[in-house]
């Protein structure tokens, strides 16, 4: 008989879950802060090209997005690249002018010149349509553009 006899099997004390809400809340706040809600419902497939010499766009309210890509539902929109502005697929580049004017009405006059036009374009799209968009933007004095790209990792 040993002096240090085990007093039967001791069950491990249950892990306290009191701090669980705290941990979860911490994660929750992290995601709430970093999240950016997808601003539009994309109807196009866009795989952006990659580049290394890129700049970040800062002020989101001063960015207008123009999407160009291949329709996700080709039976409805065909197989050619199309342009999407906000939630709508538009028929031609001439729709960009009126759309920009509508957007600019909501802005301060001094902000209008600061607006960047972010072109989110699929890498397989041909330049013809892009040139037309650029000509259209130039026509309405929307001169700041940004070719949206991913970040190249090598090098």
């Amino acid at each position, binding site marked *: 008989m040993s002096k240090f006899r085990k007093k039967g099997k001791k069950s491990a004390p249950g892990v306290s*879950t009191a701090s*669980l*809400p705290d941990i*979860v*809340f911490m*994660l*929750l706040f992290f*995601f*709430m802060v*970093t*999240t*950016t*809600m*997808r601003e539009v419902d994309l109807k196009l497939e866009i795989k952006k*090209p*990659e*580049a*290394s*010499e*890129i*700049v*970040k*766009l800062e002020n*989101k309210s001063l*960015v207008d997005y123009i999407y160009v890509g291949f329709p996700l539902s080709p039976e409805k929109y065909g197989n*050619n*690249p199309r342009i999407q502005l906000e939630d709508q697929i538009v028929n031609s580049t001439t729709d960009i002018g009126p759309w920009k004017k509508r957007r600019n009405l909501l802005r301060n006059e001094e902000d209008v010149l600061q607006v*960047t036009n*972010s*072109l989110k*374009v*699929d*890498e*397989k*799209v*041909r*330049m*013809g*349509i*892009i*040139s037309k968009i*650029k000509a259209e*933007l*130039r*026509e309405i*004095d*929307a*001169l*700041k*553009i*940004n*070719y*949206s*790209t*991913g*970040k*190249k990792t090598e090098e």
Partner: protein
Amino acid sequence: MARREIGEINAGSMADIAFLLLIFFLVTTTMETDEGITRILPQKWPKDIPIPEIDIRKRDVFEVLVNAEDYLYVEEKYVDLKDIYPMCKEFMTNPENKEDLPEMILVTEELAKEKVNFFMEEIKKDSINNNGKMAALLNADLKDWQDKLLAVQVNKEPFRTLPKFAVISLQNNTGTSYKMYIDVQNELQRVINDLRDEKSKQLFNKSYFELDEKNEEDKIKLRVLRAIYPQKIAEKEPSNLGDTY
């Protein structure tokens, strides 16, 4: 009246609620990074002013053509994408003063001051004789020389820079793929950024990429670097030979 005692609220479901919210944000989150290559399109030419005939010398143009099959034709040679970098760098600096590359101008403080005064006069004349129709264009010239003046003062010695009409001319085809277009733009930008970076380290002991547009001090530094190595990429209307779009 007997006050009823309020029992402790069970916080056990708090974790569940938080989890639910967490999962919602996890699903809706798209860590979309908004970055890319920024370009400023040229201004429209004022309607009632004829476009002046400018005799641009061939040596002042770095011609980059991209065709519908994404082949590159630079300075009258078929080249690979990676060849653009050294060629463009040589064009931007012309270190050996070659005959077929731009004739660099040496910006001295006197020259810059003289030019600033000249354009101020021109703007005055234009507003009197011409109703200020050319104001936008003349102001651009004035600003250009004001920046150069600042640059030469910061640099403390004269520097060589590209002449006014020297330009990187980029022409693509309507059938060029967007990927190739971005690759070429990226490569040209890389040359300019690297040159500015080199200068930035030499003048300010700081990388060009660390300079912040929103910081007043950095803003001046950026102006100086941009004046020394201007970013002049002009795009021609695309050709549509072999159009496949």
